[in-house]
């Protein structure tokens, strides 16, 4: 019954949406403000990657929100899952119960630095090449994921993660605020734009993207670590209920 209703409704909605979207010509040039972005990101900001210019500068405010969403997600995760530090450390030995295969461990040793390097490269060159802080950060986080999978004993110091996370966030927001203190607007570029396609170009854009890269990497790693700790949930649950009773 529910399925039938759902199918009918969804079919109707989908058809309606399709009819509407079909009116939008495919592949047509319908740029308005985008034209301005394309023209001015190399000219005014000295940024080769127009998407980066938009993400970090023209619509940088969105990105600040975006970073906040990630930060929120990691905070929310922590708050929802109620992982407690002491339980975590007490139970970390449980992780060793299943050991990854030798191949993974050895490969990890070689690959993880490279992955991290790649990630760093991606976000440092965010204003020049495809990719940027988010992509680079995600790549770094996969490196840590690799570590977490390969070495069950590997734990991430949460203090560090928090520290990096916070510091990167403050850097982003702080750079924005510096704009105000310099008598300009929030997030406005206050550094020289430099020469197009130089590594040191684009004013504050690379700085922000680097901060974002660190932040995303730290946050994703933190999230991964949190989620992985669920795998040792069974024991944890018992202990938690024990401590709850004690409370």
């Amino acid at each position: 019954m529910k399925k039938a209703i759902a199918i009918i409704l969804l079919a109707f909605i989908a058809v309606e949406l399709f009819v509407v979207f079909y009116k939008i010509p495919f592949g047509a040039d319908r740029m308005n403000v985008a034209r301005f972005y394309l023209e001015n990101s190399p000219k005014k900001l000295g940024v080769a990657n127009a998407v980066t210019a938009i993400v970090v500068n023209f619509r940088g405010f969105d990105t600040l929100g975006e970073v906040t969403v990630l930060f929120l997600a990691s905070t929310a995760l922590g708050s929802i899952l109620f992982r407690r530090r002491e339980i975590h450390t007490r139970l970390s030995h449980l992780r060793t119960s299943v050991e990854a295969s030798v191949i993974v461990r050895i490969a990890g040793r070689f690959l993880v630095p490279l992955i991290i390097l790649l990630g760093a490269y991606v976000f440092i060159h965010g204003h020049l090449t495809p990719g940027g802080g988010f992509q680079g950060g995600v790549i770094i986080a996969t490196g840590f994921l690799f570590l977490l999978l390969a070495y069950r004993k590997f734990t991430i110091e949460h203090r560090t993660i928090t520290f990096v996370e916070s510091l990167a966030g403050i850097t982003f927001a702080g750079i924005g605020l510096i704009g105000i203190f310099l008598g300009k607007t929030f997030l406005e570029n206050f550094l020289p734009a430099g020469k197009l396609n130089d590594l040191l170009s684009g004013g504050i854009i690379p700085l922000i993207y680097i901060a974002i890269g660190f932040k995303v990497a730290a946050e994703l790693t933190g999230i991964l670590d949190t989620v992985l700790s669920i795998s040792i949930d069974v024991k944890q649950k018992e202990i938690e209920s024990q401590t709850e009773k004690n409370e």
Partner: protein
Amino acid sequence: MVATNHILVTPIYFIALPLFFAFLLPLLGKIYKSFIRIVPGLMFAYLAWMAVVLLLYVYKTGNPVIVKIAGWAPPIGIDLVFDQFTGFIATVIAILGFLVWMYSYLFKKVEFDNALKYFLLLMLIYAGSIGVVITGDLFNQFVFLEITGISAYALTAFYRGRDGAEAAFKYLLIGSFASTFVLLGILLIYTQLGTLNMADIARNIDKMDPTIKVIAFILLFTGFGIEAEMFPLNGWAPDAYSQSPGPIGAVFASMTSKAGLYALIRLSFTIFDFSSANELLFIMGILTLVFAEGIALRQEKIKRMLAYSSIGQIGLIMIAFSFNTYLGVFAGIFLMLNHALVKSLLFFSASFLAYNSPHKYIKDIQGFARYMPVTALMFGIGVFAIIGFPPFSGFWSKFYLLSAMAEKNFVILIILVLSVSLIELVYYFRVLHKLYFAEPTGEYQPHTPRWNAMLAMVLLALIIIAIGVYPDLVTGFIGKAAHAIMDKTTYINSVFSI
């Protein structure tokens, strides 16, 4: 039309400071544990002060404060619009934010980690709500809506012992629908106009293909309607209100729902030029009002009852705005203010009542007035205000609302609204009677509010009474706000004149 780049007072701080301190808070906590409580408080106080200063400036000069971000004027960059209308709502949120902080100052005193997360999420939900209100960019509004949403999910699921996760999951599910629809709507607009700035869209809205325009409107209306707790899109709301920690109910009522409502109003009043948008708002308002208030009549749990009541009030606000007359909009804004103040007071006091009753049932709170007279009195003041007895603030908003209806000669509607009001009276006074008359069912060691919560409640009650006795404290601001939201051209011109 002034782009103030004042270093101390600028609307950007409403968003930049909470985000900055949210990022900083974990580090501050490492330095000194109490910083996680004190620093947000200082920030909230500063922002509340700043909001008042800005609002007074806007009120006196008549010029909205519009800030461009990253140095790009709209429609290239994102702009923040602090005009008479958005400014007023932002100020309400800012003041309520400060009071919520004061109320929850000692929240989770022992559990440092949880307290940290609580204050962090509180700052972010605050920033998100204000962001939705003051941003001038549609996609940016979506981002802030998501910030509000995610922090709300997390806060809903904050308590472990309750069914918070269930409520949060429902909220998340429906909230995801909202974000999908909003995104689709934004996309449709973007394909037609190539811009995301609200003023720019409003200026060029007639260049859109009519069919696409309608569908975009429907998608955005549904999406924001979910956030505004419109019936029948509000299935998540009662659960979320009732399962979140006490002060967060107040946050939902005074901040997030206001943000959704604002988006809905901006959509119907400024962005699109549909005259039937008001009819839609009207019908949905009536449905929301009648269903929510009626269902509230049959609630057994106090916070759930408050939640339905809150939804009903939203319906009332939607009705008021749907008239599209000065008086109607005026009444609507007054109702928004009143709802924010009174519902916060009710949630503040009710959460202490509910906290002490094991199953949160209304019947469990009987005789609690004996144990916590001040809390009960605050609840009573809230009830009196929401019923609209003079000299409490609710009276004026109700009077203006009815005047707006009478202006259009909607006698049937007046009778309907007042009948619903009667239902409201019945269920609120039932609770009040339980609170005051029945004998307590057992021995309690009640958790009475600490000084900070007490202070927050008393302040709220004083504000409510002050507005009730002397409504001209706010009517000037509200009048200008009503003019501002109804005057589309001025909005567009002022955005493009910076």
